């Protein structure tokens, strides 16, 4: 029961706070691609992989009082930040979750910008393509982001590091 909710709570517990929904979306997707068994279904959207299921589940966790959501007005838009509550910690304690340790990966993701994570998650989304085609696809689906050669190289290195963590 509520195993998928508990898995997310485990993530929030490890992350100790996440700044922004976009970042949260990309972090969970990238972790999923790194064999962390989150089950939220993702589709490609305007800004890369996005999961409606994740959005809803996080809303549920907030309504249950397991997560605290803070809304920040950034003049043109709102930013939403999340933190696990003590009730959430209690809920998590009741579960015996069989989750791999994601501390290092979460740490690596947390310190990156949402723009960079959007690039990384998009590259992961097309990871069945050879690297050249993958990069071409990123430019095709994200012409406005105008990712530089350096950013893409950095993303390639970052993905390799994440995968090395699995070994």
């Amino acid at each position, binding site marked *: *029961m*509520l195993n998928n909710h508990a898995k997310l709570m485990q993530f929030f517990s490890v992350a100790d706070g996440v700044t922004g929904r*976009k970042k949260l979306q990309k972090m969970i997707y990238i972790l999923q691609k790194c064999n962390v068994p989150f089950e939220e279904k993702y*589709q490609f959207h*305007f800004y890369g992989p996005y999961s409606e299921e994740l959005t809803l589940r996080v809303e549920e966790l907030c309504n249950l009082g397991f997560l605290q959501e803070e809304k920040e007005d950034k003049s043109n*838009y709102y*930013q939403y930040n999340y933190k696990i509550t003590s009730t959430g910690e209690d809920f998590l304690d009741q579960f015996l979750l069989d989750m791999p340790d994601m501390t290092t990966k979460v740490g690596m993701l947390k310190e990156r910008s949402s723009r960079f994570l*959007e690039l990384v998650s998009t590259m992961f989304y097309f990871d069945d393509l050879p690297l050249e085609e993958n990069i071409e696809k990123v430019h095709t689906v994200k012409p406005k982001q105008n990712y530089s050669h350096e950013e893409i190289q950095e993303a390639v290195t970052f993905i390799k590091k994440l995968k090395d963590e699995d070994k």
Partner: protein
Amino acid sequence: MTYRDEQLSEEKVFKDPVHRYVHVKDRAIWDLIAAPEFQRLRRIKQLGTTNLTFHGAEHSRFNHSLGVYEIVRRIINNFQDRPHWNNEERLLCLCAALLHDLGHGPFSHSFEKVFKLDHEYFTQQIIIGDTKVNEILERVGPGFSQKVADVIAKTYEDKLVVSLISSQIDADRMDYLQRDAYFTGVSYGHFDMERILRVMRPIDDQVVIKSTGMHAVEDYIMSRYQMYWQVYFHPVTRSAEVILSKILHRAKYLYETNEFTFKLKPTHFLSFFEENVDLKDYLKLDEMIVHYYFQLWQDEDDEILRDLCERFMNRRLFKYVEFNPNLQMNEWMELYKLFQQAGIDPEYYLVVDSSSDLPYDFYRPGEEEERLPIHLLMPDGNLKELSRHSDIVESISGKKRTDHKLYFPKDKLNELQDEAVKTRMKEILYGQGAKEDVE
């Protein structure tokens, strides 16, 4: 004349209860509708188990797909000669609209969860694989099928084309809200689509709404919100979905044990049980086949499979109570043990279902660059996110209503001989002295 430009000698129309008529003039569209992979959609209901709650909801994915095609056809007619619109993309949009749900299987939400499938993957496979649909699309032009697949996957380079088929106010949603409202018979779900189509504008890489049309969009958002809670999340439908999922889990489990022999080999399900489904197997399975097996499984030797199928086929559904995982976690654990003690397997008969388990959503503006919101085109040419301008939408999208329900077979509880166990179960489920007859 090339196949891409070929028109029928006379326009064909399909009578449609929502849009009155669906108009077809392109030869390619006519041929796609006749393809076996598209005809298969006649045998897959748009709303899965909802007909067990709203008996009129027997409409199919075929009806809906034609509806989405018709809406896109009308939008494109309005877009002709407008800046930002490239009419070269017309047939691509129409094909993508028609085929966007091609990969849906029977009761696809439950099947996807249990057998780890993805209907979008099968949509792609039908379009680019060895199928009649692919043959027709490639006749339009080499590589055309891949373009259609990319539009549906939302990875096509022209985002404007993608947003017609898939965005927060797209042809897909506009059709299913109205169609589902019509067939369920509910009074919500209706909005002035003609008005919305008139105020839609292609701008750069998205479709926006002229600010003068804001009220029509508010109505659409309200419809979406009401359909979400009144139809899509209806607790009785969810009960049927819970049972359906448990049937699939049980049948898969029995197959995996290697100790159970089905009276009739479940040939159509084998690759699903083995999580090794290819396109050929996938296309063979429709609701007729699923019902056929459920009918047979009512006579199986396994008591759980037999009981669950009998419940599903005869609409003897689970009852439910509201459940708060925060306040009732300990009680749930006690209940789980009591079910075990009473010989009612809680893995199949005690199920928590959450709103996030369902594949529908209502409008949320979201965060910047989280998801593309609905934009209003203001008189000064600027774009403004809808909820920043509409009090009604702000009020709806600001509310985060979620819910969790606990499903169980009340009849089985009533049959229990152990009065102490039965009483305690009911105390937990209904609270002491609380009303029992939740329907």
